[in-house]
């Protein structure tokens, strides 16, 4: 660093954010940000409440900075920051507060958006030009203003290449003597892009400095809820403000993250309004362990389990997505979400950080007179948006003819192997005569318009010592599937108090979720989607309605009873679940001395869940019915204590140190019963079952940890971070149950240190390295156990078949996996920060991965747990932001994120080259992890070809020969992107989000069956006159045969043997979200005391701009498990559109 850089002179007061828990003034200052519309300048919409008596000015400024986005710029030599002040403000604008603070002083302030420049009126030019000889002197004068017209005091004006310079005065005027006309003047001011001007023959040089977009003091929430300056971070952290979730709502916050953050691969499931989300940060990191990130609310972990487990890829009736923990979070309570992407960011979370951390900060109250009220209401509607591209040339039937009797029509209810569609009469499954015409609207006719209505009201207020925010929210959703609903009620209370040296915070959230008839996906049984998608193409699905007869028994519609009548499922199947969830947190912070504080926190996330699923009497595949119930109690409890110390060593060096300990207990207690055969028909009680089999799944886990960190900063230019954590796990072998995780990181602000070309307004380099653990096994995985099998006779005992480690070989030597991440990145800003670029490269290696792998059943077991896996994720993340237009009332901001993750399975167990993760119904395709391939590879068969490309036929069967299992493609998209455009003009703003994923494949079960049933266009050749096949036999000799049109169905049915036929590129680009907002001018409504109001038109998932799957949405995911890459008769994807209203009183 050059000593004569102006920044050395002008002490720039930034947010030297350390630990918020250490700040003693939090309670005395509250900020309510009424950020209803981006058009307003920040200062005009930000109101602050504070109360200080006899306090140093610097403390007051510090706290305004910490609790708002304002920051102060001033020359420390010229401002008496030690002056004691008294100030009281109640929900006041900043200029009122500043007037108060600087009354009777000569300090003037200038507010430029978030910047507040302070300078004494007496500020005059310095006289450091004395060294220049008289004859060389040319005097240059001028005025420096901002691009918005304000005078800029304190701008440092130097002669380039010398140490000589002056400051502008309070009016922005300067005067400087330069040696000659070749001199170059350099104008520098923090927060503005520097400018250089060659003096030439000018005597007056007026300069307009452009505001730098650089958010140099952007503060983000990091591990353990610690707020830190973004510029100091050695790793990439992305923050999304709460506003982004409150208008175009997704019920699940995870789903709302889709497309917003580079490197975060988020997917919402098409499982209805109470469904889960799946988030993968920087690729799948564990072969068979959990891959979703840790969720943290206000610094403490919460639970994100799906009670009873995720839906499977191939399950039948009741294979539903019961909703994850994120489904219970109300987006209107969220202040911000920070995503800690890598091990380095999350290292303080130790074993749980391997997959990254999602930090949610909830809104707090603001001290004010009376009560602040916020009301947010959203109403949206949803309709199916994707329809299969079936053939409508040949209709219902078989053997090339249409049904002639009711019984035939039922037998062929899902066969479209009939005659050419000609509009003639035919007898359908309802026994009535109907025209033999294409029925293209079965999806529209079967599903309904879904409605989502969300209302949140929040109250906040309080006095200096105690503030509160209390919100109530009601979310009412109906699914596109009739009779399927989801209701969520949330209340959230946030209390903050300050009593002397004690600061307390308490959070209580209660959520009640109530879901009815969540949709099944996977197999045909009890899956209503199956009927809508597979019904013969000349049958109107409404002919099957209501699906039951006078005795309430299912009316058959096809030859296979397992393919349940969809109307019967909708009308008679009963599925209900409720989740009562309570999240409580309490913390006390005590300031032992000025630099030392101690904090204790206890948090508990507890829920109980009740699920009941009834297959009613009269169901064709289960005549006397079935009953399944699940009751789950889950508690995640954390107790943490930490000591924080901070110290400034002079002006250039400061450290923040922290040490703490945490104890985590996790309990998952599940009782389930499965029963069959209702003794009294149609009476659905657990007491009325012929057979009841109970099962329990009780898991207890404890992890104890100690951790510490040291952050050091030097002159706002170099920052270093060290962390360490040691975890002890109850679930591991006592021999190996402890592990230490270190991390180190540094960032270097290049633009502070050296002179860069003018176009570069900011440059930062960062690097970090961390080791964390993860994927700690389920409990009880280290010892072989024997469990009792429910028996009505002699006692029966089973080997290793309890519900926790179901038929898995245990491992007495398990240890946690290690995930090592190295990350390098740079943040660059160009053209007065109008163009911003973040680049990150990471290399994440997982070793000793705990692998639960399927093994040959002949081993006596289904699975084994091994500590052997190795997995690599490498990737780049790019974020490009640009202010494309900022002219008058119009602005256009754009942000583009792109991430590529290269995943590679390096090693499985000794002698294992692949492990099976999941299969489709009937094993038509597999998801395997294969050495040398990315995580989640889709495996299946192809049609055998000879070297000339001829199809090889099997003479005995007359069908093409299927190859053995081969790699077909990746189930997980390696490339993800998102593009956000924000336009604003006066009171209008428009947000458009487009996102895409590329490079993955999807295997479609619907197309397998659509082909077997004669619905896909693939099945058209040969319908009229039979199909001639030409190819070769295995020995190379030519083979031909003609498949008669009567045998065509059997021929095409066999296509299920060739997985590749149903595999498609899953890449897509979607118009994900549009929000058009009008900010209602509220000045005229002051009688109603409305502070702000806005109304928005919102839409989500509006259009697919690019896709390769003709028959379905490539995002047709129905499980939040690690097994992605199959489509299997889930609920259709929908588009939603509606209105949002936000009012503040």
């Amino acid at each position, binding site marked *: 660093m050059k000593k004569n850089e102006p920044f050395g002179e002008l002490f720039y007061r930034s947010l030297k954010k350390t630990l918020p828990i250490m700040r003693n003034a939090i309670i005395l200052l509250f900020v309510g940000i009424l950020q209803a519309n981006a058009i307003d300048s920040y200062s005009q919409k930000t109101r602050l409440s504070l109360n200080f008596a006899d306090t140093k000015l610097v403390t007051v400024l510090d706290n305004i900075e910490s609790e708002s986005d304002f920051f102060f710029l001033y020359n420390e030599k010229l401002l008496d920051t030690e002056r004691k002040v008294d100030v009281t403000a109640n929900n006041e604008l900043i200029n009122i507060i500043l007037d108060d603070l600087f009354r009777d002083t000569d300090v003037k302030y200038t507010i430029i958006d978030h910047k507040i420049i302070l300078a004494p009126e007496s500020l005059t030019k310095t006289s450091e030009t004395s060294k220049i000889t008289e004859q060389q002197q040319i005097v240059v004068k001028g005025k420096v203003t901002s691009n918005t017209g304000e005078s800029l005091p304190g701008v440092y004006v130097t002669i380039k290449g010398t140490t000589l310079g002056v400051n502008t005065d309070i009016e922005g005027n300067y005067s400087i003597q330069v040696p000659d006309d070749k001199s170059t003047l350099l104008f520098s001011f923090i927060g503005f892009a520097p400018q250089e001007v060659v003096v030439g023959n000018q005597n007056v040089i007026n300069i307009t400095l452009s505001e730098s977009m650089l958010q140099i003091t952007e503060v983000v929430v990091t591990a353990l809820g610690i707020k830190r300056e973004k510029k100091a971070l050695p790793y990439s952290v992305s923050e999304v403000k709460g506003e982004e979730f409150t208008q175009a709502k997704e019920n699940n916050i995870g789903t709302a993250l889709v497309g917003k953050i580079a490197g975060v691969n988020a997917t919402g499931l098409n499982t209805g309004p109470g469904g889960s989300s799946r988030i993968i940060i920087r690729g799948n990191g564990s072969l068979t362990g959990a891959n979703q990130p840790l969720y943290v609310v206000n610094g403490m972990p919460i639970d994100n389990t799906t009670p009873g487990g995720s839906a499977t890829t191939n399950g039948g009736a009741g294979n539903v997505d019961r909703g994850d923990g994120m489904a219970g979070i109300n987006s209107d309570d969220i202040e911000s979400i920070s995503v800690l992407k890598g091990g380095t960011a999350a290292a303080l979370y130790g074993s749980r950080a391997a997959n990254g951390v999602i930090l949610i900060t909830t809104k707090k109250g603001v001290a004010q007179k009376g009560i602040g009220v916020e009301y947010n209401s959203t109403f949206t509607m949803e309709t199916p948006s994707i329809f299969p591209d079936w053939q409508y040339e040949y209709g219902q039937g078989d053997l090339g003819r249409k049904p002639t009797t009711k019984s035939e029509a039922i037998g062929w209810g899902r066969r479209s192997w009939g005659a050419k569609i000609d509009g003639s009469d035919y007898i359908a499954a309802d026994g009535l005569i109907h025209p033999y015409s294409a029925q293209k609207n079965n999806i529209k006719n079967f599903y309904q318009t879904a409605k989502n209505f969300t209302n949140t009201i929040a109250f906040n207020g309080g006095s200096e010592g105690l503030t509160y925010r209390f919100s109530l929210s009601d979310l009412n959703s109906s699914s596109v599937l009739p009779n399927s609903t989801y209701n969520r009620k949330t209340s959230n209370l946030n209390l903050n108090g300050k009593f002397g040296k004690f600061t307390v915070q308490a959070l209580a959230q209660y959520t009640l979720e109530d879901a009815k008839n969540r949709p099944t996906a996977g197999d045909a049984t009890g899956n209503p989607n199956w009927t809508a998608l597979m019904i013969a193409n000349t049958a109107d699905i409404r002919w099957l309605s209501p699906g039951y007869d006078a005795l309430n028994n299912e009316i058959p519609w096809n*030859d296979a009873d397992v393919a349940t009548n969809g109307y019967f499922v909708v009308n008679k199947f009963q599925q209900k679940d409720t989740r009562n969830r309570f999240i409580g947190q309490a913390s006390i912070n005590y300031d032992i001395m000025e630099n030392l504080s101690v904090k204790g926190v206890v948090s508990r996330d507890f829920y109980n869940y009740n699920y009941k699923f009834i297959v009613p009497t009269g169901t064709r595949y289960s005549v006397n019915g079935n009953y399944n119930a699940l009751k789950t109690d889950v508690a995640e409890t954390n107790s943490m204590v930490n000591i924080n110390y901070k110290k400034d060593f002079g002006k250039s060096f400061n450290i923040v140190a922290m040490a703490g300990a945490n104890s985590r207990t996790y309990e998952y207690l599940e009782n389930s019963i499965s029963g069959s055969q209702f003794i009294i028909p149609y009476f659905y009680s657990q007491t009325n079952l012929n057979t009841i*089999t109970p099962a329990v799944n009780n898991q207890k886990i404890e992890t104890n940890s100690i951790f510490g960190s040291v952050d050091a900063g030097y002159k706002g230019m170099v920052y270093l971070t060290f962390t360490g954590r040691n975890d002890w796990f109850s679930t591991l072998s006592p021999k190996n149950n402890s592990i230490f995780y270190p991390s180190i990181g540094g960032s270097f602000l290049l633009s502070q240190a050296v002179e860069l070309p003018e176009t570069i307004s900011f440059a930062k380099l960062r690097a970090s390295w961390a080791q964390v653990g993860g994927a700690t096994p389920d409990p009880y995985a280290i010892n072989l156990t024997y469990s009792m099998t429910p028996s009505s006779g002699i006692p029966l005992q089973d080997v290793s078949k309890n519900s926790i480690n179901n038929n898995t070989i245990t491992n007495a030597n398990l240890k946690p996996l290690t995930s090592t991440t190295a990350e390098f990145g740079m943040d660059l800003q160009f053209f007065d920060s109008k163009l911003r670029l973040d680049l990150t490269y990471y290399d994440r290696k997982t070793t000793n991965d705990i692998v639960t792998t399927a093994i*040959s059943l002949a081993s006596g077991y289904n699975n084994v747990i091994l500590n052997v896996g190795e997995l690599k994720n490498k990737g780049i993340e790019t974020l490009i932001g640009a202010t494309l237009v900022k002219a008058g009332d119009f602005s256009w901001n754009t942000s583009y994120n792109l991430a590529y993750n290269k995943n590679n399975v390096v090693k499985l167990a000794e002698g294992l080259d692949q492990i*099976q993760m999941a299969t489709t119904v009937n094993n038509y395709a597999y998801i395997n992890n294969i050495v040398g391939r990315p995580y989640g590879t889709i495996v299946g068969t192809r049609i055998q070809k000879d070297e000339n490309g001829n199809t090889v036929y099997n003479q005995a069967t007359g069908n093409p020969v299927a190859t053995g299992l081969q790699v077909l493609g990746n189930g997980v998209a390696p490339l993800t992107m998102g593009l956000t455009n924000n336009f604003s003009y006066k009171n209008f703003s428009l947000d458009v989000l487009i996102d895409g994923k590329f490079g993955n494949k999807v295997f479609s079960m619907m197309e397998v069956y659509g082909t077997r049933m004669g619905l896909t266009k693939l099945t058209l050749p040969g319908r009229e006159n039979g199909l001639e096949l030409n190819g070769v036999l295995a020995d190379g000799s030519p083979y031909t045969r003609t498949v008669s049109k009567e045998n065509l169905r059997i021929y095409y049915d066999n296509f299920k043997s060739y997985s590749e036929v149903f595999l498609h590129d899953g890449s897509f680009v979607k118009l994900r979200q549009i929000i058009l907002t009008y900010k209602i001018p509220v000045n005229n409504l002051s009688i109603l005391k409305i502070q702000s109001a806005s109304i928005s038109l919102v839409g989500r998932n509006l259009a697919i701009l690019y896709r390769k799957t003709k028959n379905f949405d490539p995002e047709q995911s129905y499980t939040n498990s690690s097994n992605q890459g199959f489509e299997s008769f889930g609920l259709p994807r929908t588009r939603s559109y509606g209105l949002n209203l936000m009012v503040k009183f």
Partner: protein
Amino acid sequence: MKKYLSTHIVVFLFISTAVLLQSCDKGFEDLNTNPDASGKINPEYVFSKAQIDAARNQAYGTPGTMQYTTTFNEVAGFGSKYIFLQGNAPYVVFNNGYVREINEMGEVIRAIKDDPELINELSAARIWRAYCFHLITDQYGDIPYSEAGAGYTKGIYKPKYDAQEDIYADMLKELEEAALSFDPSKKTFGNSDLLYGGNIDSWKKLSYSLMLRLGMRLTKVDANLAESWVKKAIAGGVITEDADIAAITSYSNGQDINKNPIANSWLSEDYIRANGRDNQEGGKYQKNFIDYLKANKDPRLGVISVVWVENGTGYKADTAFDLQKGMPSNFINKPADFGDYSEPNPNTMLKYEAPMLLVTNAETNLLLAEAAIRGWYTGNASDLFEKGTGAGLRQWSLYGSAGVIDQTKIDQYIAAHPFNESGSFEEKMDQIHTQLWVALFPNSMEAFSNWRRTGYPQLVPNVVPGNVTGGQIFRRMIYPPSEVNLNKEQLDIVIARQGPNTFLTRIWWDVETAK
């Protein structure tokens, strides 16, 4: 005061951190013990489970292939139509067998083998393990045997496939050794033995009866070897009384696992509606089976089979002889007269509490008759045939009152079906094994093995479009795809040795022509 407080807090924190550090893994072992599973095996309970599991693992069988049953439905018609569209039918015996009974027997033997006091339990366990293995090898041919079920004990996750020849040698050796090891002075499995309540003599007879069954299996591939084992079995003493039939008892209510597995699966898959019209999978008795019983005026017909007839408000199961009609197996759509075809008698076949017969007096006597005509046994073939035939009729009384056949009717049937003393060897074989086919019903797995060995009864294959065998009856079941996925190297070796993994590849003892 303030300073005092501060100091105290700091000291407190340091102490508590130190305490925490020392106890960071205190109580972890207790915490990590599954409250719902025992770390200790109860060998007798696992043995009971393995008995039930092995019995259940035959319920699937191939009743359609043996032409007892059929359906118009393609998927369920796998066995009778040789169409394999989807499902696990060819794999179930493999998939269930290893993770259940094979693994369980391995654990039982591991727990008791070193205790000389438990020699009787060990012997029964060895016999039962041989029984479990023979069910699997007869379906597939070469199978994992010596390395099977060793995932936990030896860490073998990709077990090799042993040649069936070696497997047979070992199973027979096990039966022989185990039968000779019983010691009446030592304890037994007692009530946990669902077959014999721990009766040693019965176990010996079962062991020698299995030796007879397995020995006979070898007649085509190695007649000399077959002879030596058959003679050894006869010398040891096989089952010759109804009282020694190996059968698993079942219960009418409670857990599914305790119900008769055939009744349970047939009811839930097809016959629960009890009207003969709405059978979920379209199941009925096959024409060939019913025709044979009718042609021979077999009194078992009404015991086994009913036709549901309309009875005013509902349907009644009618056992009338003339009413019985088997369904042809080549239907691919539900016939209009579906309700007129015969299906299992709810009072015998579909009773949850019916016993599951595993090795019967009928089978041993009929096999002894074969031994006699081969000259391997001095008994009188005609007498043995009669004894076997009579036992085959009498055994239905184990199904309850609806299964009891009058002794007069049995005598009449025997009289009407005298042993063809003057017939050729093949004619005698035809007669013995066609009778055994009926006597084995519903044990289609054993019938399938016996048919492959002897060629009797003379079954005419069904030819239905879309079949996977070119219209031929299966010669084996195929290895599951999971083996292709998870144990490919070993599977490749066995395919090279045994032949392609198809339904028509013949297993070792099923050679094309007798040697």
